[in-house]
């Protein structure tokens, strides 16, 4: 259809890539995997600074693995200083 043709040519490419499998978490339970990816991202920010582009990779990892509500709650806890993880 015309609508689909128009949309297909104006949008950017979609890259099929996601967080890779981690051998630290080989089982079905991936709760710690999500938690660890989130902590790794914020440790990278603390080490390399907010404007560094090297931490974006870790951000994509935890966004792929963690539900949105969890990330929202953790962001709120970090702002309040009550986040339980070792940042």
């Amino acid at each position, binding site marked *: *259809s015309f609508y689909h043709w128009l949309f297909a040519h104006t949008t950017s490419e*979609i890259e099929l890539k*996601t967080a890779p499998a981690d051998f630290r978490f080989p089982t*079905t339970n991936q709760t710690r995997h999500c938690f660890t990816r989130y902590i790794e991202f914020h440790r990278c920010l603390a080490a390399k600074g907010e404007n560094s582009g090297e931490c974006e990779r870790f951000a994509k990892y935890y966004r792929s693995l963690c*539900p949105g509500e969890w990330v929202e709650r953790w962001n709120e806890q970090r702002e309040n200083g009550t986040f339980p993880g070792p940042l």
Partner: protein
Amino acid sequence: MGLLSCFRSTVLRKCSKGSSGMSRFLYTNNFQRNLISSGGNESYYGYFNRRSYTSLYMGTGTVGGITSARIRVPNVGCEGFMCSSHLSITQRNSRLIHSTSKIVPNSEIQNITTEMVKTPEVSRWMDQVIPTIAPCDAAEPWQLGFQDAATPIMQGIIDLHHDIFFFVIQIGVFVSWVLLRALWHFRSKMNPIPQRIVHGTTIEILWTIFPSVILMFIAIPSFALLYSMDDIVVDPAITIKAIGHQWYWTYEYSDYNNSDEQSLAFDSYMIPEDDLELGQLRLLEVDNRVVVPAKTHLRVIITSADVLHSWAVPSLGVKCDAVPGRLNQISTFIQREGVYYGQCSEICGTNHAFMPIVIEAVSTKDYGSWVSSQVN
């Protein structure tokens, strides 16, 4: 094994063998209507609508709430199901996703009655003459066998079941024969004075070793299949998060987000029976489908926001509990394009039966088009 296959194909009728799409449509159409009524005024074609199913089942003679008129798609100048405007909104969305499909007029029957996989051009021309045999990717009434496999895991499960069933039939017949012979030959008329047999060393050894050997022959392929399901060695291409709620599923695609606020997320509610259109399945259709590419490694992360649910799709051979506060991961690889139906498989409250799962496997290019249309 050939005898068992003959037995299976005659008694356990599979819809991919003797059932055409038309008869499936007739099955669907024969269900009772007006069993479930929804009290909301929203149209299920809305993108982020929420609906309460607390008064789904209306008893006989109960004066329920006021049921408002539902929004219907107008069928102007349309007769029967030969008209393309009879396609539902979801199937029109499917057509938008399947950008390269060329639908000829007679294929409307097949698209309305079943969710067909795409067929080559020559075979599609043949389908206009010969009734199409549709894959069985949704539950049929009184179905006894499996739904057709779409993943290697489900194919392995079906093969394992057939192999073990061979042993089960043999053991069942043998044990029944031994039991009936004992009941006959040791009945009281023939043996007024019962014998006092205390112990037999030889038969004790025999009936301990032989079952162990049989169990070993059953366990070897079973464990091989079980450990092949844990395929974390393959990096997936897509991660989908399925979040269970009372009583709907929320799906998140977060691989394409550039910030925490941006999100490709949608709720997937069951279409009530009163709103079903021609050819849609009862208690199985949803307003927003999970769209995934076929022939691609997927990772589905399953969790819950309130109580236990279970994300189960029989054609894919997956069933995984949704536990609040825990992320369970399953890996799957869908081998053919199609629409696969599942249901919540953990009792989660009053409307546990009304939170179905629909997965639509499309080509990679169509999936990219779908993501582009959703993200922007």
